[in-house]
């Protein structure tokens, strides 16, 4: 059991060890859907939702099942994440068609999002309990949302400026991400 306070877990996951900018998790959506602020925000919210559910089920698996068969961890986590995403998709479709349409393709894509899988693994490695895991998930989700929205707003304003031809596309996004990551390093002294 880790002895960090909930507060430090929350802030560490959100800004200091931001999933995208400091740990490079969830880069695919970061590159893919960060062109518009609105979609970036929706993607971030969907992420928080699935992260919290993943954290709960990872905790359940760790406490009740994987105790005796630790070598099945990777396999069982990936199955849980994949089926969780499927279930969430079906439930959301049934309960709120509006939200389902708003999330669109991003919901199923979450299976191969390393942030989700990474959360389960990190939570296990650090030995977080139930509430610590929940706090970690919410913090990480907010951090992802923050990074996505920041990136999207920068890209929206860069769109009409005159960048050199060679920098158009992913190269530019990566340089911006590097700069953002440097800015986030400033939070390192916070904890």
């Amino acid at each position, binding site marked *: 059991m880790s002895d960090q306070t909930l507060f430090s877990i929350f802030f560490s996951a959100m800004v200091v060890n931001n999933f995208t*900018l*400091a*740990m*490079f*998790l*969830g*880069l*695919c959506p970061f*590159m893919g859907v960060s062109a518009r602020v609105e979609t970036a925000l929706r993607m971030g919210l969907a992420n928080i939702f699935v992260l919290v559910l993943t954290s709960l089920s990872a905790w359940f698996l760790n406490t009740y099942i994987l105790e005796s068969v630790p*070598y*099945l*961890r*990777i*396999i069982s*986590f*990936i*199955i849980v994440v*994949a089926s969780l995403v499927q279930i969430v998709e079906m439930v959301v479709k049934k309960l709120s068609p509006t939200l389902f349409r708003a999330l669109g393709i991003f919901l199923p894509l979450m299976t*191969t*999002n*390393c942030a989700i*899988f*990474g959360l389960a*693994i*990190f939570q296990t*490695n650090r030995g977080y309990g139930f509430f610590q895991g929940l706090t970690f998930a919410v913090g990480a989700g907010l951090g992802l949302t923050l990074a996505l929205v920041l990136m999207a707003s920068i890209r929206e304003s860069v769109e009409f400026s005159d960048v050199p*031809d*060679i*920098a*158009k*596309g*992913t*190269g*530019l*996004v*990566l*340089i911006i*991400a*590097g*700069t953002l*990551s*440097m800015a986030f*390093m400033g939070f390192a002294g916070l904890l």
Partner: protein
Amino acid sequence: MRKTTASQDFIRGIWEENPVLIQMLGLCPALAVTNSVANALAMSAATFFVICCSSVLVSSCKRFIPKEVRISAYILVIATFVTLADMLLQAYAPVQHKELGAFIALIVVNCMILGRQEAFSAKNNVYRSLLDAIGTGIGFTIALVMMGGFREILGTGSFLEFSLFGPNFEPWVIMVLPAGGFLTLGFILLAMGFFEQRKKAKQAQTAEASS
């Protein structure tokens, strides 16, 4: 689809369709573990093992995998080999295993591996799939070692822990920090864009001259 020869399958993954530098797949490990060449090598070796084994298994079992559940089946195959790689690395390279930590487990969600299974191994025979996997694995290794080299040389002034510049070199600490990963890959892409553009300009010039 264009028919390709065996050697094309092999070469393609190394440069022309390099998974990291051209297709932008598998970025998470490429950025996260390349702060030293040794880590980059360990990561590439693990990924290489996983992609080769799963390509062989998927292409040899492709007749028994129903179309509806093929993605889940591929993920299960990959997860099994990742577990194996995790255990092997823990047994034979405990230092690297500790450094890489959770990123070994994260090979499961490396889209490059799943992408090769879906795009190639599911449609081709074992021999071709193995060649394709080896090519892609080598391409991944080249990209990772290149980034690890840049970052380690600039960030600590050494290569594979041999000091290069002597004690007067002031290391660029930023390069081994997370921001350095983004910047390194960004600048590599910019350089590739530059050469691409120059090649195109040259081709246009020769076309003009000949007409």
